[in-house]
């Protein structure tokens, strides 16, 4: 089975600092891939490279076997790559509904839609993430957890094939985390592959089919959650070397 | 060859004056993120103040600089504290509009108060020259240049090395933190704007000594100061020296080789080029 998303030897330099160093991995259909690593490991940079927000210094990215390395962000969005932002990026002056409608209008299935149709679709996504009753509020009136859900709804409205989630559980309590895990599972069941960056190890362990670990911009482990989390290098990266 | 040297020298001397003209604008813009469309009008006011000090009280324009500076500083403080502070947190667009309104008000008040005649400040030594080889250096222009350079360097030192200067920069970058440290942002913003206008006043006095003033020069001067600030870059206070000299030399060369109107074309084309190729300016840190 060929991978949906194939990242090959991708590197990103920021004048002297190497944020992502020769990272390669694949994302297959209907799977949830977790990405973990200490702060500054390059996780968000990796997502930005895949979504097209920043170009790689070297390496290639393939989506459905098509090279998309040179594609602008908007083209990747139209092809079916959706993402949420760690630092949330709503359209502040627009209503929650219209925020999501943008995704419906310009995403993967956007080009044929009318505004009314887009808003209908947006409503469905808002219900899916549990924000149905907040559709008419202004986006900048929402609190933190609601904003996270809005980010998800916006990306989902694009009807993506791949969803890149950047720390959607940050700052949530245990109940809210469970709800988000449930939502992501249902997203996967809709046929969307999800790449989830997370800090909450317990949550990501439950959620992921596979786990990827980044440290100082490099991939240091890739496999099932159990294998990866018992890997020495991973433990060392998080906790430091054991003193004997 | 001698002509070229003269033209280049003229350009450099002009550049010094341009630097001090733009310094106030660049300071307020770079530090407070306030784009002051009325800056040129304040320069014009400084010029008139110096003219009156000279004509009515016989005070030499250079010796009277401190008076003009303090008076204009006070004006700037009041304008910021009493007016601009109320729109600082609005979309930045609003500061553009409000300063435009202020520009209109100042220009009209000046027209009423001073009449539309052209004025120049002519101290006794106005015509004196110093000859250096085959180039002529007008005394007044040279003194203006020297004052401008000294003040610009002084401002650079002030912002980077003194406590107040650092407080100003810190406040502009992080209002909340500044408040926690006991700094009163409203006062500091007003101080900064006051300094910016004080500098405009000084520039006006110098301008009045080397060129003519009338109530309408404000807009053109503002445009020029924008060009200087952007070409030099807003990150570094010394940028205005670079921007000023680049512009001064370009204008002088254009004047010599192509004609008066092309001086302006050249300036603005350089400005557009800088904005497109290197928006942070020649001395700016690249984004």
């Amino acid at each position: 089975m060929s991978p949906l998303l194939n990242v090959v030897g991708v590197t990103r330099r920021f004048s002297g600092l190497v944020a992502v160093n020769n990272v390669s991995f694949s994302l297959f259909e209907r799977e949830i891939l977790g990405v973990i690593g200490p702060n500054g490991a390059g996780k968000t940079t990796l997502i930005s490279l895949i979504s097209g927000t920043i170009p790689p210094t070297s390496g290639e990215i393939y989506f459905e076997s098509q090279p998309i390395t040179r594609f602008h962000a908007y083209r990747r969005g139209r092809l079916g790559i959706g993402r949420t932002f760690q630092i949330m990026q709503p359209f502040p002056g627009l209503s929650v509904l219209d925020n999501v409608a943008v995704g419906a209008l310009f995403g993967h299935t956007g080009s044929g839609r009318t505004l009314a149709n887009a808003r209908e679709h947006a409503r469905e996504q808002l219900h899916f993430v549990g924000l149905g009753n907040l559709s008419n509020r202004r986006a900048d009136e929402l609190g933190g957890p609601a904003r996270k859900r809005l980010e998800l709804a916006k990306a989902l409205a694009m009807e993506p094939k791949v969803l890149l989630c950047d720390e959607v559980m940050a700052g949530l309590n245990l109940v809210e985390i469970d709800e988000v895990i449930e939502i992501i599972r249902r997203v996967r069941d809709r046929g969307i592959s999800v790449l989830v960056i997370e800090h909450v190890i317990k949550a990501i362990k439950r959620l992921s089919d596979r786990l990827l670990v980044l440290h100082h911009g490099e991939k240091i482990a890739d496999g099932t959650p159990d294998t990866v989390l018992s890997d020495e290098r991973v433990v060392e990266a998080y906790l430091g070397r054991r003193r004997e | 060859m001698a002509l070229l040297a003269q033209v280049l020298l003229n350009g450099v001397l002009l550049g010094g004056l341009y630097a001090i003209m733009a310094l106030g604008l660049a300071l307020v813009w770079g530090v407070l993120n306030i784009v002051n469309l009325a800056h040129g009008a304040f320069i014009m006011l400084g010029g008139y103040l110096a003219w009156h000090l000279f004509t009515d009280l016989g005070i030499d324009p250079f010796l009277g600089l401190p008076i003009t500076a303090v008076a204009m500083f006070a004006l700037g403080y009041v304008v910021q504290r009493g007016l601009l502070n109320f729109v600082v947190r609005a979309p930045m667009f609003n500061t553009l509009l409000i300063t435009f309104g202020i520009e209109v008000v100042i220009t009209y008040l000046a027209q009423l108060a001073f009449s539309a005649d052209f004025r120049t400040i002519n101290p006794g030594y106005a015509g004196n020259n110093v000859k250096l080889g085959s180039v002529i250096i007008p005394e007044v222009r040279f003194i203006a240049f020297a004052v401008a350079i000294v003040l610009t360097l002084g401002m650079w030192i002030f912002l980077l090395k003194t406590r107040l200067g650092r407080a100003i920069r810190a406040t502009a970058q992080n209002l909340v933190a500044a408040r926690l440290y006991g700094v009163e942002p409203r006062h500091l913003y007003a101080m900064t704007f006051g300094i910016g206008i004080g500098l405009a006043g000084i520039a006006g006095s110098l301008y009045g000594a080397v060129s003519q003033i009338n109530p309408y020069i404000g807009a053109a001067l503002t445009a020029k100061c924008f060009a200087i600030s952007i070409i030099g870059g807003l990150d570094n206070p010394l940028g205005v020296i670079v921007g000023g000299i680049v512009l001064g030399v370009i204008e002088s060369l254009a004047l010599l080789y192509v004609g008066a109107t092309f001086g302006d074309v050249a300036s603005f084309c350089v400005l557009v080029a800088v904005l497109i190729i290197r928006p942070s300016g020649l001395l700016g840190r690249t984004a």
Partner: protein
Amino acid sequence: MTKPRLAIVATALVVLLLAAIPWFGSDVVVQFGISTLLLAVLAQSWNIIGGYCGYPSFGNSTFYGLGSYGVAIAMAQWNLPFAVGMCLGAALAVIFAFLLGLPVLRLKGHYFAIATLALALAMTAIVSNVGIAGQNIGLVLPPLNNDFLFYELSLGLLVIATLVVFWLTKSRFGFGLIAIRENEEAAAVMGVNTTLYKVLAFALSGLFTALAGGIHAYWITFLDPDSAFDIGLNVKMIIMAVFGGPGSVLGPVLGAFVLSAISEVLASEITTVAGLFFGVVVVAAVVLMPRGLADLSRRFKSEGWRYFANNIKNYRL
């Protein structure tokens, strides 16, 4: 009748009323009308790039000048009819928008504003040196003494411009522009081709501005670089658009009408202080109603006089 239907009918009535003015208004009124209508077109055009797309252009006067010169050159130099001149002016504007829009639209906020201003200033200087444009002396067009026609033309142009803006609020393109305004990076990631959309908005804005310039040139019969590329127009159109309410359909038109009326009344009553008062009005408006008349009329019902105090409270240091 539902509210939107009511609004449309009301607007149509107002347009008919305006169209009827030349029949029973004096010459002075008609002339004032032409100036105001053209200014309203400028404000509305600016609304497209500044209000809806969020890129505050300080250089739309460039398009005005290009439109003016398009008509002037076609009619005075090449003896072509007015319609051809308008097409020429429009073409010049659109080409300019694409060529120079691409680099300049990469800048944000203040920098974009200044770049467009610099372009406008440069154009004045450049055109002063171009032979076919009559250089500094300018051009004289064949005269047409028919204020009635110019009035209806201007009104027609304003109606079309407003309809286009209305279309923006209902179309995918307009939605994309608004998304760009609210958060460009998010818009791009969600599939909006930001570069293309921005340039299209700029070109659309320039198109209507140029057409207004063309009508104005033929009406005035004479133009020179300084008046055609009048920098003051930039600030006027922006203030009218912002005063009325940027990002709304009728706001800029209202702003243009109200501010022109105030200006005219002042000019005839208190001539010396007229300009001064305009500046004071602008300053007061920015402090008290930064979101414009459109927002004021919407919120005044619920907030009353507190609206003004709230604005100050929200935006003060």
